[in-house]
């Protein structure tokens, strides 16, 4: 019968502090054995039973952790949207805002993630906690392509947490190197690529950095025009005008769209490479992440 002592033991009763502690213990143990859905129900039960906002918030944060572990980031965001921020301590506000920003970041909802960090910065009085959120802030800003702001944030974080002057100088040098203007992804304009391919076929692909694709596209367009010319020379006027020109027109139109796509692809690869490098640096740097 002892095994019947479960997360639903206290249903229908007003929960005492001891009850809540036991419920937390139970839900935590389920979390540890990766029973995330059951653990989540347990935490929600605490949020339901407890009359205290602090307890509710703690439970909701842990429930969000369950969703994060299940890689259901959107659901984690929804759970954390239930947090009521009045009368919460700085540490709880920090934890909740941080988790919300993390869930939004993982859900590629970068605008909301940034908004959470900004709110944390303005509402939390404890500077130590505010700076703890900066590594995530840097990643969010990078994803939003706000590289200058990201560099400032990373420098401020290093400045705040590194006491040793030599170490700080070394880290600042590394940050300067990472965010050096030559390293920051130079994003090309997809519209410009389209226009270039419109005026001079193949140049849009060249602009995107895909020389051979541009050359192939020009060749195919020239083949279409050549076929048109050949047909007209052989007095196949209709065939030349319609079939030959259609071939040319298809490759011309396709080339324009392809140039736009290639610029977008290039921008994505460059951004991804840069952002992943920064992420790796943040994770690997023992001075920055406290060993």
């Amino acid at each position, binding site marked *: 019968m*002892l*095994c019947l002592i479960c*997360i639903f033991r206290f*249903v229908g009763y007003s929960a005492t502090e001891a009850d809540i502690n036991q419920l937390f213990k139970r839900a935590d143990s389920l979390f540890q054995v990766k*029973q995330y859905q*059951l653990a989540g129900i347990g935490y*929600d039960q605490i949020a339901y039973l407890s009359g205290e906002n602090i307890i509710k918030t703690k439970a909701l944060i842990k429930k969000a952790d369950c969703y994060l572990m299940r890689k259901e980031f959107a659901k984690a965001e929804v759970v954390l949207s239930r947090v009521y921020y009045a009368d919460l301590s700085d540490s709880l506000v920090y934890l909740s805002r941080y988790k919300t920003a993390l869930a939004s970041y993982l859900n590629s909802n970068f605008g909301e993630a940034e908004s959470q960090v900004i709110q944390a910065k303005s509402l939390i009085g404890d500077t130590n906690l505010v700076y703890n959120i900066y590594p995530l802030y840097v990643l969010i800003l990078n994803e939003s392509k706000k590289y200058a702001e990201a560099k400032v944030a990373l420098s401020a974080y290093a400045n705040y947490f590194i006491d040793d002057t030599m170490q700080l100088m070394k880290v600042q040098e590394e940050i300067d190197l990472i965010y050096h203007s030559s390293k920051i992804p130079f994003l090309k304009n997809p519209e410009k690529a389209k226009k270039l391919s419109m005026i001079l076929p193949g140049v849009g692909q060249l602009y995107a950095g895909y020389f051979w694709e541009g050359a192939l596209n020009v060749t195919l367009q020239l083949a279409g025009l050549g076929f048109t010319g050949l047909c007209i020379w052989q007095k196949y006027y209709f*065939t030349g005008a319609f079939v030959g020109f*259609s071939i040319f027109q298809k490759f011309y139109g396709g080339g324009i769209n392809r140039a736009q796509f290639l610029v977008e692809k290039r921008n994505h690869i460059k951004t991804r490479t840069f952002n992943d490098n920064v992420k790796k640096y943040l994770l690997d740097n023992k001075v920055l992440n406290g060993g």
Partner: protein
Amino acid sequence: MGINRTILLLLILVSISLSVNLNAQTPDSLLIASDFKKLDLAFIDFLINNQEHEDALLILKERVIDKSYQNSQLDSIYFYTAWAFYNLKSLDSSIIYFEKIKIGSPFYIKSKFYEHFEHMYLKQYAQADVKLAQFKVDDSTLVELKKFQQATSALMQRDFLKFETIGNSFTYNNFSSAEEQKALYKRKEEILKNKRKSPLLAGLMSAVIPGTGKFYAGYRGQAISAMVPTFIFAAAAAESYYRAGPKSAQFITAASLFGIFYVGNIWGSVLSVKTFYELRNNEIHNNVMLDLHIPLRRIFSN
């Protein structure tokens, strides 16, 4: 003997503590949750209100087959199960549990209206009609809602006579459904405009002038894109025939391409009659279902 009893007692204690630990650590911990008889429906309600439908279903899963609950508790369990499935858009499963709720339950009326709605959403109009006919309501708001659901079902089955008969009894003085009742007549016009066209005629039209069959079917933009390549290859074939004769490679190539486009266009036109009709029908169905849903939300506040 005393030592043996002590060992036995220790073994029992060890096995009890092991069973506690194992139950906490094995995947069967799900059973722990479901085994507990005390059921707090307010907590289920709390989960559902917070969009945690899967969690609610996990708790309710074992309880829906447990007959030891009182009827009123079972009705609540069925309702919350049906409601969670409804929110997860598993309408078939939702209907199964809505059906189980008995007359006299506080959830009965709401569940019946939603059950009818789900049948209609799934285009199971016959089942909706039977259930609506057996369903008795007295309240004037609910009477109007019932008539609205019946008229919608008749309309979706294209039974215009029945639709008119029921529609004539609409009072339009009930805030909850008056606007949607009026809108139903607009939907009727849309249905009447969406006439089933002849695939044979579409095919013939495309045989005479390529692309016109698609225009007739309703795909006006596609008509040009179907017409152009067919004409291009027709012109090329005619030119090759005139210049090089019927046995020339140019003619055979161009004529073959023309043939492929020409026949493909006719076949495409025949099929497009059905696809366009169904596409438009689905649009109308979705709009009608949206209209049908609004009064439900107004009346039952969810």
